[in-house]
């Protein structure tokens, strides 16, 4: 059975739906995958790296990105069908349980160790957008405390869980799912970037019908439940 799965994966043939998805969708999509009748093979990474793989010819059936820009670019370049918005999320500041950080202003203190995601990951882009809305002096002080730019949001959560860093910007859904107790500092609404997840069926999907079913299930079926369960906001909830 497992062998069959591996062989199907190698040949790209048969019954498996291959899904490339943003790292922050790991929990939601794993749960959705259990609820669907068919089998999916998920590849979770930074949306930017997944988009780059697709441009290099790696052909999943479906691409779910933590932003709208990447699937839209792929659609414009002919790699994918026009994307559908399916979820929203929020940025929060996750801090170690024993940390004294209580607000974004505390991040400017010298000695604070802050981790963010690299700019190629949407969460890194959202983080930069959020920081750009801070007053210039605060923004520069916060930026000076950035000690690492992790490839994706899981790297940020990992550094925080290990107590290696004091604080990091993550999605609220990641903070909720973190194995260790991370304390969440909510951020003012005026700083929040608009975080929208979009999904595309790839132009040369081998299973286009199942790919569309997967997208539909995400909008109104078990996938919607899985998103809610994982702490994301389904698009139909309204913005």
């Amino acid at each position, binding site marked *: 059975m497992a062998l069959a799965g591996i062989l199907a994966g190698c040949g790209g043939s048969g019954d498996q739906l291959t899904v490339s998805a943003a790292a922050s969708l790991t929990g939601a999509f794993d749960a959705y995958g259990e609820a669907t009748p068919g089998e999916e093979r998920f590849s979770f990474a930074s949306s*930017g790296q997944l988009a780059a793989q697709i441009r290099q010819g790696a052909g999943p059936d479906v691409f779910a990105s933590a932003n709208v820009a990447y699937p839209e670019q792929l659609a414009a370049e002919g790699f994918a069908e026009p994307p559908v918005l399916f979820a929203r999320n929020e940025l929060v500041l996750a801090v170690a349980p024993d940390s004294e950080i209580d607000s974004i202003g505390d991040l400017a203190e010298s000695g604070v160790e802050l981790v963010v995601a690299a700019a190629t990951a949407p969460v890194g882009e959202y983080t930069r957008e959020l920081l750009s809305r801070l007053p210039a002096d605060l923004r520069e002080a916060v930026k000076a405390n950035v000690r690492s730019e*992790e490839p994706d949001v899981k*790297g940020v959560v990992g550094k925080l869980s290990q107590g290696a860093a004091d604080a990091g910007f993550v999605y609220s859904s990641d903070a909720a799912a973190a194995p260790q107790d991370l304390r969440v500092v909510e951020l003012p609404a005026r700083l929040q970037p608009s975080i929208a997840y979009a999904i595309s069926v790839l132009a040369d999907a081998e299973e286009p019908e199942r790919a569309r079913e997967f997208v539909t299930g995400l909008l109104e079926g078990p996938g919607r439940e899985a998103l809610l369960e994982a702490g994301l906001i389904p698009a139909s909830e309204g913005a």
Partner: protein
Amino acid sequence: MRARWFPLVLAVALFLALVFLTVPIAAIFIEAGPAELLSSLGNEQALDALGLSLLTSAIALLVIVVIGTPTAYLLASRSFRGRSTIMTLVELPLVVPPAVAGIGLLAAFGPSGILGGVTENLGIRLVFETAGVVVALTFVASPFYLRQAQTAFESIDPSWVGAARTLGASEARAFVTVAIPAALPGLLAGGALAWGRALGEFGATIIFAGSLQGVTQTAPLAILELFGSDFDAALALSAVLVAVSAALLAAVKIVTPNRGGPARGTLA
């Protein structure tokens, strides 16, 4: 006439191995034309990463050679209880996945690691620091040098060191003036292999030290990030790394004496 199928099988196997191992390397140079290579030299992130990789791997190599050479000599020149256990322990990083090495380093030297308090009291910060990169590189690359150096010391004719001793030289003097020069080709080869491994290190570095341009972002980490944003720059940086690694490998071939071709005796 007897079937000549076996030599054919060998030739086909060689052909498959050669194609499989060379095509991805060749593809980097075919896709990264001279124009991309040149333009990437203007990519600040790529240059920073390359400079940091050369610096941290050179420091790691220095540490490995200074501590590894006497260690290898001890293991090669004495037999004692527990020797084979120790040899297994020092070779362990060779088979441990790099990500596991990173987790282990965090669990040992991270702020909440078992030795985290000790390093902190000494004022040593490793996580998110260039020093942490050096630690990660040293950890994963050491066994490559230790193994090669131990073999080199073991293959010295023991009567040479013995002769030096009977002529009145102390063991330290015999080590420096006889053993090291005699083992030098093997030591250089081990150093080059360790350096190559350090240059390619990825998993332990990102998990233990993080990734920040100019501080902890080595060339392999920059390649991952550039892959998502600027594929040409990622290709070009890859090409530079291939060239450096190939030069190291060539250096190994040159300093390692050719031991007379295939070992016919073992097949006969």
